[in-house]
């Protein structure tokens, strides 16, 4: 169902995905993997409250808690409420939406390859490129420019339009 690369990332990071490798610290609980709607053990930001609860195999304690939940909620302590939430949803909204450091890895790789390319180009300039043509010397370029101005090439909006023929200089 998932493509190969995604599967291998899933296996390597113990179900945490690409964000998992970059996140400092671990999140609460490491339940066994479940596929949709909890993809990679994490709820999707676009589907934050799946119909099925996160944990379905409950220990003795947890089943007792679920029984207590059927009564009045004012009798639940804060810790019990949090435990029930974790059973149902595994992560808070803040945890689910947290940012990762993946961008740093991406930018690092990008800069690395830019630098490598720069090395390749420098090597090419030294060992591969032939001599520059004679028409690229400053003197010849100046003579060509003078010829273009003499023949009034592009006199409407282009080159000769920007040259002041009386004052023999570029128009300001």
């Amino acid at each position, binding site marked *: 169902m998932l493509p190969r690369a995604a599967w291998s990332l899933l296996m390597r990071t113990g179900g945490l995905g690409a964000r998992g490798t970059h996140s400092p610290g671990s999140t609460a609980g490491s339940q066994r993997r479940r596929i949709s709607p909890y993809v990679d053990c994490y709820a999707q*930001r*676009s589907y934050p409250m799946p119909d099925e609860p996160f944990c379905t195999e409950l220990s003795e304690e947890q089943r007792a808690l679920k029984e207590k939940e059927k009564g009045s909620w004012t009798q639940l302590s804060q810790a019990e409420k949090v435990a029930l939430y974790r059973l149902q949803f595994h992560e808070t909204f803040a945890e689910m939406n947290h940012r990762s450091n993946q961008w740093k890895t991406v930018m690092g790789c990008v800069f690395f390859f830019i630098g490598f390319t720069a090395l390749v180009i420098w090597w090419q300039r030294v060992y591969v490129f032939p001599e520059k043509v004679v*028409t690229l010397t400053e003197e010849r370029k100046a*003579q060509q*420019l003078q*010829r273009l101005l003499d023949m009034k*090439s*592009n006199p409407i909006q282009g080159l000769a339009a920007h040259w002041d023929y009386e004052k023999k200089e570029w128009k300001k």
Partner: protein
Amino acid sequence: MAYPSQLGLQDATSPIMEELMNFHDHTLMIVFLISSLVLYVITLMLTTKLTHTSTMDAQEVETIWTILPAVILILIALPSLRILYMMDEINNPVLTVKTMGHQWYWSYEYTDYEDLWFDSYMIPTTDLKPGELRLLEVDNRVVLPMELPIRMLISSEDVLHSWAVPSLGLKTDAIKGRLNQATISSNRPGLFYGQCSEICGSNHSFMPIVLELVNLKYFENWSVSMV
């Protein structure tokens, strides 16, 4: 010809090229509008926290984004066809010049009055005089009278070539066994450069075209001297 740091088209030398420049402005504006709209929508999509996972259909927007591109295409097509037909208008040329493409040079024939023909080879870089333009200069330029309509008949002796002079808005394929016609009408004198525009072998990049538009007197003297 093209000049350093040029961004747009070369200045128009003929009325058709002026029309083409205006058409290019019009079409490019449409393209910029569409591209900036798409870029804006992409940016919006990438920078929102909202999600919607259950879209089923969107009939209203689908209708709009089908009709609107059709309207835009019509707005592009109408000016385009107008210029296309304008190029083919009757204009009573005063002179007919034939050019044949070869591998790898052009030959020109002015056979209306005298029997004048010559080949036009590129000047190699090592033979350039100071100030001449590399890969653009030729030994024999095509001298033509300015401000008069001239018919060009273009064909080829071997493979496909294309006779192009951007500042006059000309590009016509040279096809063996076929005569293609183009009309030159220059507003001003000067040198106008072009290059072969259909791949034709190893020296395809080295068979340029240079038109020298001059006044009629000079043209007459030149054609007499060349025969």
